[in-house]
């Protein structure tokens, strides 16, 4: 397709967290990775990033109330 999905206006910034960042995140939130929101392995954005199953994706959203907000999703098989 002519479009890189990551550049679309509706798509916020997605980044893959490194193992270390992932560990730190789960520690600060005091949860296991299964408690994170999910994103499917066949999601167009996941494909574009080349993320693997079990990766955590950090999403930087533009929030109308907070300016910028962070969200995390775990890549899972559909």
């Amino acid at each position: 397709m002519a479009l890189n999905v990551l550049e679309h206006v509706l798509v916020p910034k997605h980044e893959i967290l490194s193992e270390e960042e992932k560990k730190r995140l789960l520690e600060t939130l005091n949860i296991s990775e299964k408690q994170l929101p999910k994103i499917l392995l066949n999601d167009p954005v996941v494909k574009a990033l080349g993320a693997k199953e079990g990766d955590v994706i950090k999403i930087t959203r533009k929030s109308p109330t907070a300016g910028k907000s962070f969200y995390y999703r775990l890549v899972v098989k559909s």
Partner: protein
Amino acid sequence: MELPESIKKEVEAVCREMKLTESQKKKVYERVKEVYRKSMFEPGEAIGVVAAQSISEPATQMTMRTYHAAGAAQIQVTLGLPRLMEIFDARRTPSTPTMTIYLKKEYNNPEGAKKIVSLIRETRIEDLTSEVQVDVLNGKIEIILDPEKLSEAGLTSKDLAKILKEGKLSVRASEKKLSVSVETDELSELQRVKTKVLSTVVRGIKGVKQAVVSKKDGEWVINTLGSNLSKVMEIEGVDPTRTVSNDIHEVAKVLGIEAARSLIVQEASKTLEEQGLDVDIRHLLLVADTMTVDGVVKPIGRYGVAGAKGSVLARANFEETIKHLTQAAVSGEVDRLESIVENVMINQVVPIGTGMFELIFKPPRGKK
């Protein structure tokens, strides 16, 4: 604790305006942090219920007003309560799928927009004909073409014949006429072929029934009725990074779950705003987040969020009571009474607010 960006910006702006010194600024930050912390929801607050009420109450107002706003838009779009229900129920296909297409710089003029409209608007053979004759005796369908419309679409009768031949029909084309011969003497078969020929799409994108060009903020924008995002994005001259559809499932498929979430928020707040209702966007953010936690768009309701509740009693309380109770009885399901509704049902303390916490008392050892 970290302050959100927008508050930080505001504080910075105020500090600059008041010309505060560094130490004063520090004090301001401390005070702002304290106020911010106090204004946050406390653990155990039932934000879901608050969101539900905050959206439903104005929505009841909307029922009474909805149909009065009709006729204002160029393309008839579903508005008001029906649209709001469509969004939260995550319907497979919205009743009026529309796209808003933005154009690249080179095409950002009336001529360019018109050219793209002709590429995306679905053109069928029946749109180009002036008359159709069915010759029952010889098994022939004669289609007399309108030369004006034909040249407008930039097609010739030969092009049409070529497309029809791909559909395994024997076609003879002259300049203004197409004749399709069918080897049958049954009238019904002839009629069937006729409708098939006339509804053949010769130009444009399937599903796009209407396309209207309009000027928005000094830019030429195409609004369509009917949606087919992935096809439109491939067209030369369309700006794919800004082109959007209002079909949540389609957006989720083409652009991913996060885009679908943004679209749910955008569409819901737009619908409410159009009706002159003021719902705090945070309620909509919560609903959109709940609908997309699992990576797929789930409707609010018995097949989605409410149907996925862990507790049998909570599900039975919502809809289809008997179905849930019998199923739970057959499979030996256990209800751990961890959520709200089931505790209301058995008259226990609800795990909301202070009820969420339990006391553990460790008596001091050794001393008397």
